[in-house]
């Protein structure tokens, strides 16, 4: 039997934790906890990056880890927490699909993700290629989170968690993208969250709520109803 090196076992543990956290997000309805889960996801990503950097000796991964620490573990959760307090949105309304139903969909999504990742893992030569399936699963699960939630804030957490999944995917498949690109992506994510912050205040000012069912007037059928 082939023994897997200890560091790699730890990495696989990180991957499993990421998947677990994605499922936890799927089930969580308190928005504050959702943000905490996101921060935790960032922390696991950080641990995985550091482990990989140490094992492979790729120095640019340390930079990437620093970026993850600054942005995903500290800055973004902090901004989101502030927004939650200022806007006083603590709970999401009942999701479109109930929790157990969402979980079942989640399981199917994971199976699909592993199928999708098969050819990619076959090509990748990294030691971590078995985690690519998990990265794709995290991405798709975040997507499910976005679809089933009503509150703008939960959708944003889903969006950021999708970004985490992408980063993990890039890391396990290729030991990270070139630094220029990672910086650019990180910058875009940061700006996106800031723009969203401004945006939330505008929505709040206009509707007195961050519930997205207010945002459903621009539909094609609507213009027809007015005709009649």
């Amino acid at each position, binding site marked *: 039997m082939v023994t897997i090196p200890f560091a790699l076992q730890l990495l696989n543990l990180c991957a499993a934790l990421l998947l677990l956290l994605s499922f936890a997000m799927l089930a969580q309805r308190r928005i504050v906890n959702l943000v905490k889960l996101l921060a935790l996801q960032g922390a696991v990503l950080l641990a995985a990056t550091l482990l990989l950097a140490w094992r492979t000796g790729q120095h640019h991964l340390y930079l990437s880890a620093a970026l993850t620490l600054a942005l995903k573990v500290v800055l973004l959760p902090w901004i989101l927490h502030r927004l939650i307090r200022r806007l006083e949105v603590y709970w999401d309304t009942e999701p479109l699909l109930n929790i157990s139903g969402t979980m079942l969909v989640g399981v199917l999504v994971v199976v699909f993700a592993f199928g*999708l990742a098969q*050819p*990619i893992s*076959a*090509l*990748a*030569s990294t030691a971590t290629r078995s985690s690519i399936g998990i990265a794709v699963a995290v*991405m798709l699960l975040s*997507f499910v989170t*976005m679809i089933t939630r009503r509150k*703008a804030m939960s*959708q944003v957490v889903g*969006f950021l968690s*999708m*970004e985490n999944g*992408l980063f993990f*995917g*890039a890391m396990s*498949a*290729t*030991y990270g*993208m*070139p630094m*220029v*690109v990672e910086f*650019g*992506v990180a*910058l*875009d994510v940061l*700006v*996106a969250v800031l*723009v*969203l912050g*401004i*945006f939330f205040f*505008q*929505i709040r*000012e*206009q*509707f007195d709520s961050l519930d*997205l069912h*207010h*945002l*459903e*007037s*621009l539909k*094609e059928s609507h*213009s*027809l109803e*007015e*005709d009649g």
Partner: protein
Amino acid sequence: MEFLLLLASPLAGALLLGVFGARRWAPELNVAVSFATFLAACALTARVVGEGNLLVAREQFFIDPFNVFLVTLTAFVGLTTSLFSRPYMRVELEHGRVSAPRLRLYHSMYQLFMTTMLIALTTNNMGLLWVAMEAATLSTVLLVTLYRTAASLEAGWKYFILCGVGIAQALFGTILVYLAAEKILGAEGVSALLWTHLNAVKEQLEPAVLSLAFVFLLVGYGTKVGLAPLHNWLPDAHAEGPTPISAVLSGLLLNVAIYAVVRCKVLVEGSLQSQLPSRMLMGFGLLSVVLAAFFLWRQRDVKRLFAYSSIEHMGIITFAFGMGGPVANFAALLHMTVHSLTKSAIFFAVGHAAQKAGSQLMENIRGLITLSPTIGWGLMMGSLAILGMPPFGVFASEFLILTTAMREQWWATPILLTALGVAFAAIFGRVQPMVFGETTARRLPHPPALLPVFAHLGIVLVLGLYIPPYLAHWYRAAARLIGGE
């Protein structure tokens, strides 16, 4: 040097206007910056025509006939839109729809948007392309919500989330390409993400991974192109933002997104040696054309009407690129040019018309021709041009696309013709009463800028009658670059 100026002038403009954007002379500064960008683009074009392809900044940026023509087009429409926006935004200010601080945001973001589009067009790095496309979305989100109405906030949110999710797919696609490429080009440096390097080795890239990557890239950038069924954000964002933004979104951003899709297609097709990318482009293209043509009938808002028309034309262009071959590529490039010019001209005319009527609903806009013949005729000519009436340039490109389709994809011709006919009836039937008949319009405090409208339509007319040989040569070079078997 020209290249540096091309990117530096809008960026400097964004910073300057971020400080002075609320001043009375800010619109003039905006025009001046756009003019500088346009001059730089012209100089760059002259150089590329003279010396051939350029690689700048340690191969991070490159300019070839394909993107230099889009750079010039982008800079030109950016300039004319800034001319149009000068009186338009002043009227909005006086009507109390925007405040002075929001004008600062508007001007600054306008220039930032231009910067990101120019970076996306000229970059050699697939990763930077992604970053620039995302930045282009972010810089326009706050412009779409500039009026802070309920509808505009909804449009902005939809735009942000749909394009955000879409573009995340594109990032995954980019990662996959990088994965396939680093096998051959090595992980050192960034050469595994540079188009020029990728293109050289595209036959050796792993086909299974690249075809998967192409699906993600097409869905990602296709969302920004507004391809059905990923088009939901487009009509809302066009209708609810200020009209200059509708003009640049429709005339420029969609082009840049198509550019990204085509670059990916060239790469993947070279690796796959199969028809898969072409088929996918043709399928998405046809679906968009048909869906948009029928949605045109349900519109009551004039800007939504023309937004759906943009989806239709993006579908035609995507279909043409999907067919491939020198003639179809040539026609698609020509169509990109004339659509961009015509559609922005229409939005200029529509913007002034909506201000005069005090409403964007088509039933409230009546008899433009009595109060201001130039706007009325501008809208009429623009609509005829976009509907593909000869002698305008859109006719020439659509004719080329249709004849190529008859030869190579005969089954698609009836579908295309039906959709074009449906679109014709829908748009013409609605524009006609807006232009002629009893008037409801009022006078505006600032005279509208109509030079851009007629400048654009003039160029489209000339392109329909006669394409100068150097321009034709240039289009052919670009079409060859995209690959014609």
